[in-house]
């Protein structure tokens, strides 16, 4: 019995940057955040924005249904074989952080079946402010909150808000109707996150997901470099 890592078998372990055949695997980006903040809508918009320039696929982690996967299928943002649903036993945070084996299987199967892929988006089911992705599963993560969930969320912090590689404050078009102060949210986010980037977006405006898509492209350039 020995405890050294050997990676010469049929399946790579966790975060290895290369597949068994020596090729570089796809960049994996996680999207997490509270229920209803617009994660699936953001994933759908990203697919529409990027599908003509990149080979991409999506893994969803629903809480108790296949709703998110089925939404993406219904919206036809990608061909069905590029969308995989992982069942989480009612605990998406376990499946994306503490026990990532089912998600790793899903991303590897996607690369085997529809690859080569440039990018895999791994979406978590809506969860609480402490739900973050394991570094063994994703290379970077986006945390999505929205203005209607309360403008004090950036101030409250928590691992998602403070440590995600990108914080997205969604549904800015609703701010006047729910009394959320975008300036205050931006200042609180800055205080929590120092230099880490924050994007304010409304998918109902023309700019839509453009800023997030640009961030994803930058991550991909860095990954491919």
């Amino acid at each position, binding site marked *: 019995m020995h405890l050294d890592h*050997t990676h010469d078998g049929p399946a790579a372990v966790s975060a290895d940057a290369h597949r068994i055949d020596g090729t570089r695997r796809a960049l994996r980006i996680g999207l997490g955040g509270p229920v209803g903040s617009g994660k699936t809508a953001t994933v759908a918009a990203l697919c529409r924005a990027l599908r003509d320039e990149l080979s991409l696929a999506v893994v969803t982690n629903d809480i108790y249904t*296949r709703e998110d996967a089925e939404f993406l299928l219904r919206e036809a943002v990608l061909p069905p074989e590029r969308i995989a649903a992982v*069942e989480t036993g009612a605990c998406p945070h376990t499946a994306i952080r*503490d*026990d990532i*084996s*089912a998600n790793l*299987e899903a991303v590897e199967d996607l690369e085997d079946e529809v690859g080569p892929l440039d990018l895999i988006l791994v979406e978590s089911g809506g969860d609480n402010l402490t739900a973050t992705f394991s570094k063994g599963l994703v290379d970077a993560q986006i945390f999505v909150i929205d203005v209607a969930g309360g403008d004090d969320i950036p101030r409250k912090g928590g691992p998602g808000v403070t440590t995600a590689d990108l914080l997205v404050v969604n549904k800015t078009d609703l701010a006047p109707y729910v009394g959320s102060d975008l300036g205050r949210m931006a200042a609180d986010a800055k205080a929590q996150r120092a230099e880490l980037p924050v994007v304010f977006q409304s998918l109902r405006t023309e700019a839509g997901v453009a800023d997030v898509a640009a961030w994803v492209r930058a991550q991909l350039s860095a990954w491919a470099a």
Partner: protein
Amino acid sequence: MSRGALLVLADGRFPAGGHAHSGGAEAAVKAGRVTGAASLGDFCRGRLHTAGLVSATLAAAAVLGVDPVELDAAADARTPSPALRVAARKLGRQLMRAARATWPSAELDALAREFPKGAHQPVVLGLVARAAGLGAEDAAYCAAYESVSGPASATVRLLSLDPFDATAVLARLAPELDLVADRAVEAGRRVVDEGVDALPCASAPLLEIGAEAHAAWAVRLFAS
């Protein structure tokens, strides 16, 4: 054997995918067969002496050096429900991944090559136990305990059952766990001498039927 390694492998937090499965408890709760601690105890006892005994024997036989390919085919034959076969292979693949990272071994690499989409979980468990320096009895205990700990923790979520009551159910089953582990090791030794037909084929028809119904639900908390 290392008692420390046994605790690592038997820990419910060992990251091998078990948290997403209820071991048939979700179907039993929906059908009204599990409604509280007492019926959970009955359910677990039934599962322990049927699916649990078969799993524990498969795991023990794998530790004792019986060909895992033959054991896997025998596990298929003892699992009528296609949904349960899929679940067992998924969990086997996930356990394989976790174990190859924690206890790397040439034997595990070879099994992973043979079954890229996963072998039955108890068979993988046996080889994992070997890689961790554990014996047949240890593997049998892990399989037998998993056969009841999964449904118990799932029922806490499904029924909002008092977690102390659920754990007490498991504690009360401890003497029967000892019994099943002993029987599994004994049967595993017979498999070494007589071949895989000596494996027990204790079946729980309601688990098999429930798994098929459960797999078709549109809304469910657990994968199986």
